């Protein structure tokens, strides 16, 4: 009875004898626990890998989507706001997986295209 209980708790108690006795099912139980943990870790690793890869894919799509707008010579002038502090460059920011395929690239309503404007 005592031995059965020991197996139940994975036999963590110390043997008093010189030799360690083989208990039936011991390795199987430990392997089961270990495999569960290994599979969880592996799945976490795969998930991280997939998440990072998705970012690359989504970003590539939005990168290509902005090609024409960024390279277009119309309108003729692109003004740069020089010497401004604390300006948030929200425009032309290419997003990754978190933002899906959304691209913060807003065509302005006014004539001058300002890629650094905080709002359009």
């Amino acid at each position: 009875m005592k031995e059965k209980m020991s197996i139940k708790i994975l036999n963590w108690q110390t043997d008093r004898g010189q030799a360690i006795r083989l208990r039936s099912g011991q390795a199987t139980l430990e392997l089961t626990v270990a495999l569960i943990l290994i599979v969880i870790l592996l799945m976490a690793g795969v998930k991280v890998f997939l998440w990072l890869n998705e970012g690359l894919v989504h970003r590539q799509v939005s990168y290509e989507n902005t090609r024409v707008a960024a390279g277009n010579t119309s309108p003729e002038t692109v003004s740069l706001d020089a010497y401004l502090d604390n300006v948030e460059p929200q425009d032309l920011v290419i997003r990754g997986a978190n933002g899906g395929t959304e691209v913060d690239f807003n065509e302005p309503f006014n004539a001058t295209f300002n890629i650094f404007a905080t709002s359009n």
Partner: protein
Amino acid sequence: MTKVKFKNLYLGFRLGFGSGISRSYKGQALVELAVFGAFFLILLGVLLSYGLKYNFQQKAQMTVFRRALKIASDQGRGIGAAMILEDRAIPDPTTMFGIGFTAPIVASASVQRDHMMHAQPVDEDSLSGTVMDIQTSRDGSEETQAWMRRIYKTAAFRVEYLVPKENLDKYREIFGSSLLALKSGGSIEDQGSWASTSDDEADMTLLENGSKAYTAIRIIDTCSGEISDYDTCYTQARQLVDPEFCKRKCELAKGPGSDTDCASVCNIETNPPNQTDRIYDDLKGGAWYAADWEGPQPSVAPPAVQVNPNYNFPYLSGYKNDGTIVPALFSFSGARSAGDPVKQMAMGLHSDMTQNVVRNESMAKTETTGAISTQEDAVWTDTLNRTLVHQDNINANGFEKIPASGQPGDFVNVRTRNVVSDVSGSLSQAQVTVK
């Protein structure tokens, strides 16, 4: 007993001849999982860290290229350069609460359109420069960020007066013919007043000796830019004052079939400072950064010590060979001037920085007869201090500002700016376990 210990040392794998099957010991698999699991967690951390950094880097690179492309799409400009610097938090499972560390992400890009390859900048806007977007704060929990934008010109218009026609070849050799223009009517700062060096309609002035000189020439000088490079300026200055050095550079730059006589071109004396006159003449407006130049110092024997084996340009290096400290674009002496004791060997945003790391982590545990509740909080802030060095020397039309004193040292107007970036975030977790 000994045998058992020996086996345990090898985590229970049986050695030698025998059954060939490992025996199981209590907790054997879990001990192995603990050992290898730790390695696996580290591996996971490395994967996460590398992947995130690669993602942030790629995002920054793509964004900055698009910005450069948009800047260059301006039909009057045709070129564009941009840079992004941001500090991102990279989680690390091996640190407490997985907070990790802050990594700087830097990306830059420049674009030049084909049809503008040989076009010359004509105004302040079209002068080469770079747009720097620098993150000044980022709060991962609040999802807020702040940025600072600076635009610096890497060249400016510098004007020289009364340049004899035959001297133009040396200017072409040093600065490049595509960066020169000749005054042709109008005022100096009027962009329509300048003509190509191949144009015969340039304004000429009759000199006292009866020869003719160009009234003014405009040079697009990289040493007059708001951000300049010591090596480039040194090379340029030395070509002006050392004909042998000029000749070597000229021979190296010669294309196949070129009939340029490098020796005779390099022996031409430009407006001072030049190989014979070291004094800057504000009426002629020469390359002020080469003024008061000092040649290689001879060996002193005994003992055989060479004081300074190289050419020294005080307004570039910050010192004279006699130990005098002068205002300069760069400083190798430990002080640029008495009032600005900063050793500054490069311009632009310096990559070296100081980083203050603050981590506040707390855990509270409350145990009642019915339940155990825990509350864990972590607040962290990384403050990164960088130095941004630039000149403040260009007027609204892109011309180098001329000091009223006419002294070369007064052209120097270096600014050192401290750029602070705060990266912060917080984590919180509560758990209740019913007894």
